[in-house]
């Protein structure tokens, strides 16, 4: 990262430092996770809250935006229901029985870029879940977990998922607290073994005043498929750092996201895809629907390493503006060291198309309903290919948002 070392100095940073000093010995698993937490906090302290001169935070100045740090509170974790092929343990239980291995998994987080926010999460996370899917399991029902950060307080959570080889599963997590005003973050590590097929959905619902800085660190094995859907429907400030690395060849990742934001909300998803192995396909489609003075940021980088021949990577960011004052920024980057690859990126920003709107109205559909149909059609593309029930569940989230935002 191109930034000079600086001391922690703003009131928010100082409060985080004193919180860490006060709480570190009392956090769950202090004996096993203590060293990793101290190292994570030291990394954070070396740079402080990232500001806009830090490349990855160019559009999202955390130092300017996070002026007050809330007091620490308790994160409520809702563990998935039991079902065949799924082993679920709370973070506390897992630390008690298997502390060293868990500490190692947490320390191995892959995002591909430095993220002081994820370091903060690592330093403080004391609630969470460990969810392991057995090799070969064909898990019938979606595995659902919830990580609700405390209203008006600060909370951090972590989830460790591993999906055994050849297994197939849908993982759904809800992060943040709709009750409002929570600060914190949720970070998930997902290890997808060879030949597994995973649909991973995260819904960030951080409430009107919520600040959520989350992360997703994914490794994908050979011939595996990883489909992601990230839906951000509320939160004053939501930043999600995503890193995905192909650790085996001929795997596929479909990464999709939907930012729904009105008012003065700010939603940033920053993504890094590491094609470290040959023959992998990655598709990124990130959409935003923006109202009022909301702002959406999508930064995506695809790295194709020298050995990753036959890589196929395409990235697209699209924004639909419902107001003149909204803003969408997208920064795609390709870094390619292999010669036999197909990579591309694009971005579009636009408003509801008047010609299409007129067509619908000319058939008797009133303007509001016609607009709703067109916005849903735009957003709905991210739900394509999902299981029907799951697609319906999340298109309902988008519909509900739209209902509130259409004049």
């Amino acid at each position, binding site marked *: 990262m191109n930034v000079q070392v600086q001391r922690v100095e703003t009131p928010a940073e100082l409060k985080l430092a004193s919180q860490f000093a006060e709480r570190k010995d009392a956090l769950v698993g202090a004996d096993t996770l203590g060293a990793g937490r101290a190292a994570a906090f030291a990394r954070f302290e070396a740079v402080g809250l990232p500001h806009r001169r830090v490349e990855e935070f160019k559009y999202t100045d955390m130092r300017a935006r996070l002026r007050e740090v809330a007091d620490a509170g308790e994160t409520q974790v809702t563990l998935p229901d039991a079902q065949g092929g799924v082993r679920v343990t709370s973070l506390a239980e897992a630390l008690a029985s298997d502390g060293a291995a868990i500490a190692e998994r947490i320390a191995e987080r892959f995002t591909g870029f430095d993220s002081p926010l994820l370091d903060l999460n690592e330093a403080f996370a004391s609630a969470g879940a460990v969810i392991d899917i057995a090799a070969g399991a064909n898990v019938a029902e979606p595995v659902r977990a919830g990580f609700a950060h405390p209203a008006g307080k600060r909370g951090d959570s972590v989830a460790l998922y591993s999906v055994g080889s050849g297994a197939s599963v849908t993982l759904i997590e809800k992060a943040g607290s709709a009750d409002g005003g929570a600060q914190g973050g949720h970070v998930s590590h997902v290890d997808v073994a060879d030949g597994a097929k995973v649909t991973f959905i995260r819904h960030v619902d951080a409430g009107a005043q919520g600040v959520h800085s989350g992360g997703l660190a994914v490794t994908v094995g050979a011939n595996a498929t990883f489909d992601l859907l990230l839906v951000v429907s509320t939160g004053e400030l939501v930043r999600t750092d995503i890193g995905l690395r192909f650790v085996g060849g001929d795997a596929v990742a479909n990464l999709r996201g939907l930012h729904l934001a009105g008012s003065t909300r700010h939603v940033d998803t920053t993504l890094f895809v590491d094609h470290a192995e040959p023959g992998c396909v990655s598709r990124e489609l990130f959409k935003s629907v923006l109202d009022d003075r909301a702002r959406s940021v999508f930064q995506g980088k695809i790295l194709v390493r020298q050995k990753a021949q036959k890589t196929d990577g395409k990235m697209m960011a699209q924004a639909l503006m419902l107001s003149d004052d909204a803003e969408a920024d997208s920064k795609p980057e390709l870094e390619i060291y292999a010669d036999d690859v197909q990579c591309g990126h694009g971005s579009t920003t636009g408003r509801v198309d*008047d*010609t*299409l709107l*007129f*067509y*619908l*109205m*000319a*058939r*008797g*559909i*009133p*303007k509001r*309903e*016609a607009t709703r*149909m*067109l916005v*849903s*059609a*735009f957003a*709905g*593309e991210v739900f394509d290919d999902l299981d029907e029930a799951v697609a319906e569940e999340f298109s309902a989230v988008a519909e509900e948002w739209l209902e509130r935002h259409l004049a």
Partner: protein
Amino acid sequence: MLEIRNLHARIAEDGTEILKGVDLTIEAGKVHAIMGPNGSGKSTLSNVLAGKDDYEVTEGSVLFKGEDLLEMEPDERAAAGIFLAFQYPVEIPGVATMTFLKAAMNAQRKARGQNELTTPDFMRLVKEASGKLQVSQEMLRRPLNVGFSGGEKKRNEILQMTLLQPSLCILDETDSGLDIDALRLVAEGVNALRGPERSMLVITHYQRLLEYIVPDVVHVMSKGRIVKTGGKELALELEKSGYAEFVDAA
């Protein structure tokens, strides 16, 4: 049914006047045809009637069933009974054709104070109408007009017209891009809708369509005005002599 008086309209964006005093009265049950060279303002007239806001009406009036049409929003016009079969139907990705058809039918019913259609009733109506127009189930499952051929789009317009049962059907060059079989199919669909309470305005560049949809009255439009009106024989005359006379005269 429709009374257009001295209608002037210009392009809102740059102020170019396109319609320069159109007068046209269509009685209930009558089929009128408008013919005319490209660029004479035929599509502009149909779009102004449907309520497209790319155009500004600067003078004149339009009464539809005695009401001021120009005061209504496009959806209100549709609910009142205006239907425009577009010259270039748009593609709408992400909106399934069936969803769209149901939304349109129910929106109009709602505006008229009628109950929403039940799903079985809706399915039955669509099945009947699409069968006659040879619109396949597969087409109905696709997003609206996406990947449809030119002819399929036009048939889809007539399908909508059949389902919505408008009282004034405006057909803007529905014949363009149709082969002879498709033309027959479309004409049959249109003729099936003819009745004492329904009027039609058939815009075409060629006389061919009018062999299948026989008009009561034929108008010639040139440079934003109706320059000649006659019976169906006028269409044949035009076929022989072409539009040159009107282009020069206007």
